């Protein structure tokens, strides 16, 4: 999995590429930790180039969302693929983590 972090005007975007599975958790955590250390309060995980998500990845997303929520920071997911969206929906994650279908939607939500 490749991880790329960019700072947008209204939020920090962590873009993931490839398969996000248990093996990618360390990279993911490192990216989140770096963003946190840089003072990020609004974080979007860009899933549009994630070809496969497994159950372990869902747990890591929920855990990260929980930490952000506890610290009154914002967390969301951007443009999951069909496979990703199916998994998120089956697991009910879309009910606890905001899922944005476009960057405009994410920008608007995080501008508030």
């Amino acid at each position: 999995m490749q991880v790329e972090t960019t700072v947008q005007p209204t939020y920090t975007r962590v873009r993931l590429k490839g398969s996000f599975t248990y093996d990618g958790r360390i990279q993911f955590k490192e990216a989140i930790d770096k963003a946190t250390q840089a003072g990020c309060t609004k974080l979007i995980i860009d899933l549009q180039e994630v070809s496969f998500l497994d159950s372990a990845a869902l747990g890591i997303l929920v855990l990260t969302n929980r930490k952000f929520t506890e610290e009154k920071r914002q967390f969301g997911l951007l443009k999951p693929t069909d496979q990703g969206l199916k998994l998120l929906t089956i697991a009910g994650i879309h009910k606890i983590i905001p899922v944005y279908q476009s960057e405009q939607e994410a920008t608007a939500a995080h501008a508030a």
Partner: protein
Amino acid sequence: MEEPSLEVSGSQGDRVAEGVPRAATILLVDDDPIFRLIMVARLEKLGYRVFQAEDGGQGLEMIRRLQPDLTILDWIMPKMDGPDICEWVRRDPLLKSSQIFLMSGHDRPEDIEEGLNRGADGFLSKDASPLEITARVQAGIRSSALVRQLAYARDAILAREQTLEAELQSAASFIESLLPSPGVPVPGIHLSWHYRPSLTLGGDLFGVTRWGRDYLGLFMLDASGHGVSAALRAASMVAFLHPDNLIRVSESYDPGAILSAANRRFPLSSEGEYFTLWVGALHLPTWRLRYASAGYAGVVLCRPHANSVWLEQADLALGFDPDGTFTTGEQEIRLGDRLYLSSDGVYEALSAEQVMWGKERLQRVIERHATRPVDYAIDQCFQASRAWQQAEHFRDDAALVGLERVDEQQDGITLL
């Protein structure tokens, strides 16, 4: 004739545990007694223990017996020459990493090339200066020490791997012992299943067991992740779902209450690990199935003369919401109905184009084989999923459990 294999110098305590020689051993194989005498004296002065052999056959026997740190072979000898010995040594699994130098009066490039190609590690010219011979021998001994260290490390890793593999197999046997026996768990129900963990140990487990006098308890669970950690957590959940424990923690066999209790008992771990779980309680006197799902979507009820129904609830996986509650649904199980519990590993198989096989295709295969035995339908589902992903091995644990309600009288006849 000179008595060979004479130890001429060096201490008796010849090795330290890590395989680094204290007084390295050298075997000198040469049919020229004068040259042996000179070389032995030179090597003795350097502190090595030196053994001698006077021809190739004897040399090969001594390499096998002594496994010296370095063997110096004369190129031309009667019966078996130096390159022949090199080739024998390289074919022997126990000796193939031995350090061997070939020695010759000629040091033509084509000879050196042939010697190296036939298995020598280095080349010594008989005409070389004492200083050069000394330096080359010392380099050979250093290489030998490194090769032996690598061999010891490799052996230690292999031994550890074997131990771990044995432990994993033992754990896998235990996990397998938790699975129900196919057949007739209660009169009127036939049970079949097929399970393929993605690793030696799987994180998916299922159960079909009596809960008290009136219920058949069913569950299918998926501990996120794979391997040892997932299997341990799955086994812990199976213990939680033991009927005695269920009565204690949820005071009933109501699936929603069971999941609520499990949600409290198994919070999301600090590593983001969690369970998805489907629980059903089939009330045998009325054949009514009550069920609840914590993020588990793979249970479908197939009926001979009605549409199939996926038995899922829009409730979160265990641990996602610490205060979560779980709703209980209900279905009647009629004669001929079949209930399939599938792990996501079966229907989330991906094609080469990363397209998921999906529940709809799973349902179609199940329905296509509705009149065939359940174990046949299960086998067909596995075949179709494997064909979709064009691979025999599943990337996630794959389990498919099938239960069929049959006529109790027929069931008795079938068993006879």
